[in-house]
């Protein structure tokens, strides 16, 4: 049993987490550049499910268990060649803080390599503190790299961790089969939203925008509860499928939202955590992906959609803008841009009427939202991955980033 390893801390949930595909890419790349070195992963959300990653994955029940686990590892006598943390910046900040209290020699000499998204500017000072205490930094978009460089922080951009063989363009019969599975007829226009039920995703703009698209922006008659009772629809054969956390205690009450805007019979809610095959069938069945997020650090659903050849409508901001500028797609300009008072950075807010306008454009001519798969193929190409491997090796071995 080798006692010399690279330690990775990341999400390793089987389904539902964007980090899992990044984690898997990271493990595969590490295994390639350091074939003789063990890889040990402390996997948040991991439940000991079967995996075939070339690594030992340990379940981390709660983020708060990490200090103890790291402490035990550093004291165990093992040689930890590097600690690679692929998590959001606030969590990395906490880990950096803990490590500063670690007295063991191993903790002091282990190189800390951070991989994280940057979803919005300006870069929070707490994030800068965390990043400055890392030995090497990897971000997920060119936008993030540029932003960090404004603060004098050098970083590299990781390749897109999209399995382009799995997330692929469906054949005609696969598309038909997927649509038949959800009983979608040929003429139905299907909008897909894949987003968590949280503030940043701006799902209300998606639902209300969809309502305005159906009713042509006209006022609806409502009852004493505020629920729509009638309205003249300008389009009938449309559907909105939303993959989300349906019953989040902090998010939208979807039943209320759908009734209020008279779209209950047009909306299908899918609970997040779908197996990959199921999710892919939704991409296959849909006509367009809609993202109304106020900010995105990476936007994996958008990348999956592009990889599946699905047209995309998205907010013109951060990572979404980066992807759609290169790959095509329809960008909706935000009506309001503000600095979030809770320290989350800029928020680009699209209003329902512009969402409705975007949907109408795509409904009339889907080509306006067309995306090119080539973008994803280039960003996840073997060359890109090899470059990442070299950069990672240099980071582990202590070479400064340019």
């Amino acid at each position, binding site marked *: 049993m080798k*006692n010399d390893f690279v330690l990775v801390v990341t999400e390793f949930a089987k389904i539902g987490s964007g980090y899992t595909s990044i984690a898997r890419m990271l493990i595969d790349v590490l295994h390639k550049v350091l074939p003789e070195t063990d890889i040990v992963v402390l996997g948040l959300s991991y439940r000991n499910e*079967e995996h075939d990653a070339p690594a030992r994955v340990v379940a981390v029940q709660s983020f708060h268990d990490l200090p*103890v686990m790291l402490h035990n590892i550093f004291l165990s006598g093992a040689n930890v060649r590097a600690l690679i943390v692929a998590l959001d910046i606030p969590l990395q900040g906490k880990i950096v803080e803990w490590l500063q209290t670690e007295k063991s020699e191993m903790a002091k000499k282990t190189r800390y390599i951070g991989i994280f998204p940057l979803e919005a500017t300006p870069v929070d000072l707490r994030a800068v503190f965390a990043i400055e205490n890392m030995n090497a930094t990897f971000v997920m978009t060119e936008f993030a790299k540029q932003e960090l460089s404004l603060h004098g922080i050098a970083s590299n951009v990781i390749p897109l961790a999209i399995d382009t063989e799995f997330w692929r363009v469906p054949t005609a019969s696969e598309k038909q089969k997927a649509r038949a599975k959800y009983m979608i007829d040929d003429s139905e226009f299907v909008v897909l939203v894949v987003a968590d039920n949280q503030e940043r995703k701006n799902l209300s703009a998606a639902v209300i925008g969809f309502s305005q698209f159906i009713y042509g922006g006209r006022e609806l008659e409502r009852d004493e509860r505020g629920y729509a009772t009638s309205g003249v629809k300008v389009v009938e054969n449309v559907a909105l499928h939303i993959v989300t956390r349906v019953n989040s205690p902090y998010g939208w009450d979807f039943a209320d939202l759908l009734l209020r805007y008279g779209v209950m019979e047009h909306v299908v809610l899918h609970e997040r955590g779908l197996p990959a095959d199921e999710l892919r069938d939704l991409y296959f069945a849909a006509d367009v992906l809609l993202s109304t997020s106020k900010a995105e650090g990476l936007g994996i659903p958008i990348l999956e959609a592009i990889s599946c050849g699905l047209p995309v409508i998205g907010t013109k901001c951060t990572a979404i803008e980066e992807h759609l500028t290169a790959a095509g797609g329809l960008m909706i300009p935000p009506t309001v841009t503000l600095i979030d008072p809770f320290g989350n950075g800029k928020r680009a807010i699209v209003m329902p009427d512009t969402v409705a306008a975007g949907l109408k454009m795509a409904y009339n001519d889907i080509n306006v939202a067309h995306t090119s798969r080539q973008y994803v193929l280039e960003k996840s190409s073997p060359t890109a991955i090899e470059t990442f491997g070299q950069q990672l090796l240099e980071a582990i071995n202590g070479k400064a980033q340019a």
Partner: protein
Amino acid sequence: MARRKRKHTPDLDIVIPVYNQPEFLHQCLAGLDGVEANIIVVDDASNISIVDAVKSAAPNARILRNMRNMGFPTTATRGVEAGHGKYVLLLNSDVVISAEAIEKMKWVLAFGRVPPSAVDMPTSVEIGIVAPKLTFDSMSPHGKTGTIQHAGIALNHRLQPFHLFLGWRADHPKANEMRSVQAVSGACMMFKRNVWRNIERDGMEPLPTVYGRGTYEDVEFCLLARNMGYRVVYVPDATGTHYVGASASLVGGYDLVGNYSIFQARMRKLAIWDGWYQV
């Protein structure tokens, strides 16, 4: 004068605690056909007769019966104490394991050479306890048929025992390495009687009755054995199936929360966090 032939006594005792579910017991005993062993069935005051199941499948087996329901640790202890074999196989009545698998385990126990692992104590040399790979029985509602139910037990950093590779496919390479583990399941574990005796000599109960109806006593047994210098080894080449739950002494149920609390307190100095070495 003709010399009297010395009666051959098998060196293996198979102890099967049972509570109701005679159909499982019958299946378990039928699977042991061809095994050279003393079979001791300990009935934990079942309210359905298990006698016919035993007589039809293993007519030479001994049946002991508790006057009242005592729980797994007490029942299993009674069975072990009633035997004399050099090796003891503790077996749940809802486990089916073949003579061949039992022979493999016995061989490893007697002669096995397993490279040391990070969970072994520095002083550990002798293999004291072994256990096979168990997959879910086709009728089991607890897991997909043919996937792993048991491949050794590890402890996470909260000292919570968990089954390694639970639910993984049975032929997964990681689950098929013979290795030292901190503990194995009492559903099917074979040990040297000396391990049991040495723990008793130390003033400890090998299967502590403090756990009441059961749970955690098998893990504690393994940790106590390791503390004495024995190794606990998982033998993937020996395979069996496990229904899970059918052999439980169900009267009163299990107190998982309370027992975990007891286990943590008792074993915190003996248990080590080994989750990250194992999977």
